[in-house]
């Protein structure tokens, strides 16, 4: 019993540290995207990308909102029924902070919805929108 408390206490500590670390991970990701896009990001364009019904992707997923729900403040659901935490940074503080995770899901979800990868500008717009909510 004693023993099992130590790792849990440590993971508790890690959890209190996460918001700060998450912030710096996100800054790095945005800086990288900014350098590739060469243009200022826009939350408005990010919102349009998120809300639109797209063509060219897989038939069952015409929009980001298919899984993420219509509001970034609300939880979503995968097509297999599992809950997805809200996309807005104000609701899920560690969003867009792990470069590998961000790259993996942009690749998958942009291919599913748009039938192609998203551009650095689209990715930056999307994250900027989610940080504004």
């Amino acid at each position, binding site marked *: *019993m004693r023993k*099992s*408390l130590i790792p*849990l*206490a440590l993971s*508790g500590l890690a959890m209190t540290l996460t918001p700060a670390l998450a912030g710096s991970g996100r800054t790095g990701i945005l800086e990288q995207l900014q350098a590739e896009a060469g243009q200022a990001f826009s939350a408005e364009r990010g919102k349009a990308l998120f809300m639109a019904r797209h063509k060219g992707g*897989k*038939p*069952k*997923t015409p929009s980001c909102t298919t899984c993420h729900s219509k509001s970034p403040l609300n939880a979503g*659901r*995968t*097509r*297999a*029924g*599992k809950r997805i935490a809200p996309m807005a940074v104000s609701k899920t503080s560690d969003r867009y902070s792990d470069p590998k995770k961000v790259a*993996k899901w942009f*690749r*998958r*979800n942009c*291919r*599913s919805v748009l039938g192609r990868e998203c551009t650095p500008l689209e990715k930056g717009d999307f994250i900027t929108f989610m940080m504004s909510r």
Partner: protein
Amino acid sequence: MKKVTVSVLMLVATAMTASADGKRYGTIRDKVTREECGACHLAYPAGFLPAVSWKKIIGNLPDHFGDDASLDEETTKHVLNYYLKHSRHGKFRNPAMRITELRWFVREHRHEVSRRARKRAGTMSNCQACHRGAARGYFDDD
């Protein structure tokens, strides 16, 4: 710290109730596999399908039941190896792509599942909607 203690007690309590129930169907013990294959649904226990099925499923992740579930090459190999190693044994002529289409699954669920429970789950692939112990390998605890 108080919160931590409470969650430890809760963990112990759930572990104890779970072990009082009967059969255990296995879980995914590898962290990478559990996270990657558990992102959209329960990380389905490997023992539910034979190796041929897992080979087909994990061999086509970019077109995964209508989703793109692609992984990089290295992770795909890692996950495939895990599933192959723990897959169901035996001979299978028409390897299923779905657990939910296996004969025993259909038989177990045909009369047992209420319409309301089915609707709440959204899809029969959403094991955890009905089997709260599924992530710990228990499917007979409702």
